[in-house]
């Protein structure tokens, strides 16, 4: 018997022992949830996500500095016990800026993702189920959006309606609903012919109710995955836009706005603490969301098993 077999036997024995002891009774925990928790990367993601989220939401507890307060006596100081991440070129404490900026960045990312998903799912479910001219028009409309490089469209719209945090969220929602719309539409289109839907129709239940109460829940898995993944995508876009000066106005600290100073080659060379920690914060946060999203997809989508 080789090592592998012995190992396998041992595992089987262990399972048998647990079964006999009666521990293997059906667990009450949701299967999808337990599968996410079994995925090591997702758990790591959840931990990092929670840490950063807590740091940002309860920012006043972790730093006594105001994010906007200038202190011209301490300009561009390297990290020290007083200023954990150092200070920037007008003496603002970077740690507090990162934490308060995180609130705005995460808010924009999550808010836009939620809004885009609501819009896309709402339209997709109805148009897939009803078909007809609404469906055709919306379909062509969403196709138009996929042809447009999103960042170009966002930049155009932002300059047209003016820069502000809420405008940015609106523009993100307006440009980001298409892919979830198409997914939801395809799902509704395929479920429309199912017998249970036919049965509901025969009972005279309104289209509206069939759509949103009986068809929509079938797509909850992919919807959750979409919300996480697009939160990550919107946060990256916000960072890129703010970096170029088209995102949130510079008066509000966001992760992208803090990184904006790295445009200056001398700061890039000499003052690593101004841009490196923020960049790592964005990367870690987006990465943790992507880990969670991957875990969610693996646990809710049967075609992605293995």
């Amino acid at each position: 018997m080789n090592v592998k077999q012995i190992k396998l036997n041992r595992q089987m024995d262990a399972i048998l022992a647990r079964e006999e002891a009666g521990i293997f009774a059906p667990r009450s925990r949701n299967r999808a949830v337990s599968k996410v928790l079994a995925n090591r990367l997702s758990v790591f993601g959840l931990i990092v996500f929670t840490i950063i989220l807590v740091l940002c939401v309860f920012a006043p507890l972790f730093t006594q500095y105001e994010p906007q307060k200038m202190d011209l006596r301490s300009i561009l100081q390297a990290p020290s016990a007083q200023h954990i991440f150092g200070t920037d070129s007008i003496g603002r404490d970077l740690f507090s800026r990162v934490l308060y900026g995180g609130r705005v960045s995460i808010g924009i990312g999550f808010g836009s993702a939620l809004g885009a998903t609501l819009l896309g799912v709402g339209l997709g479910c109805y148009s897939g189920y009803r078909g007809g001219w609404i469906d055709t028009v919306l379909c062509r409309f969403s196709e138009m959006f996929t042809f447009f490089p999103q960042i170009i469209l966002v930049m155009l719209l932002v300059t047209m309606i003016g820069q502000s945090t809420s405008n940015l969220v609106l523009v993100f929602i307006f440009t980001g609903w298409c892919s979830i719309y198409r997914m939801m539409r395809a799902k509704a289109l395929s479920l429309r012919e199912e017998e249970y839907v036919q049965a509901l129709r025969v009972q005279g239940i309104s289209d509206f109710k069939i759509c949103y109460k009986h068809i929509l829940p079938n797509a909850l898995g992919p919807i959750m995955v979409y919300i996480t993944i697009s939160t990550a995508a919107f946060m990256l876009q916000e960072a890129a836009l703010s970096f170029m000066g088209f995102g949130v106005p510079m008066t509000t600290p966001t992760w992208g706005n803090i990184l904006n100073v790295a445009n200056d080659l001398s700061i890039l060379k000499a003052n690593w603490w101004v841009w490196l920690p923020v960049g790592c914060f964005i990367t870690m946060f987006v990465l943790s969301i992507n880990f969670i999203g991957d875990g969610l997809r693996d646990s809710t989508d049967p075609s992605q098993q293995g």
Partner: protein
Amino acid sequence: MLSYTIRRIMIILAMLFVACFLIYLCLDLMPGDPISYMVDQETLGEMTDVQKEAMRQSLGLNGSVITRFFNWFRGILHGDFGYSLTSGVAINKIIADTLPATIELSIAALLFSSIVGTVLGILSALKKGCVVDNVLTVAGLIGMSIPQFFFGLVALLIFSINLGWLPIGGRMEAGQSAFFQRLPHLVLPAIVLGLFLTAGIMRYARSSMLDAANKDFLRTARSKGIPEWRVNLIHGFRVAMNPVVVLIGLRLPMLIGGSVVIESVFQWPGIGKMFLVAVRGQNYPLVMMIALLMIFATMVSSFLIDLLTAAMDPRVRLE
């Protein structure tokens, strides 16, 4: 195949027309006198009010939106894109100056990411569950999570400023225009621009390769005694690559959009950087023309991808 091609071309043309109309509406709603970007600046300075009015009349600018749109559209078809508001240079000339740089960069990024992405993806699929696979999976996710411009800045700092291996930015040194002299300038921007796409292609190639591994025809191939590498790389690869090609097509807009960011990080004198300058300077005619060009580019490339997938997989044509 022919009827499929014709149908696709018709759809693309229709959508392009709609895109033109929307762009024109935006342009029309922008503040400012349209004459100011239809004539170059010097002539405009010498014109009297009467002449301007006559010109408006002759250009049909006093007509309804629809007639104005068609006049403008006729100009586009004849290659007359108008003039830049800030420099007064014809937009055709600006585009002709900057487009080659962007095309060079995009093709380099596309080549890099498709080759590296597929190779790593296949490697990851063949070594499923091993250390290599796990490392590559995590690396792929990191590649998708790191902001492109941040990665670009770090790469710039390490390879250009600290190690001094590669030039800091720009497309070429003065006096160097041969392709091989320019190559070092291209390396960093292309890799950074292609990073996101590489990570996406890698993940997709992996799952699609794993999907193909369970198919019956691979078992048949194996049972015929074909060597394992041939089964994977010739028989499996061909089928697995089909969805990957579709993915590359879907992600092309991202590549074009990403070039705006990357070109500004690396001071690459391309159309993306020009776009940024134009948006900052509220140079609307130039902005709209570049946007139109980018839509056109994505539409044409997605059309080519459609044709490619239809040629590779006969089932697509019947849809």
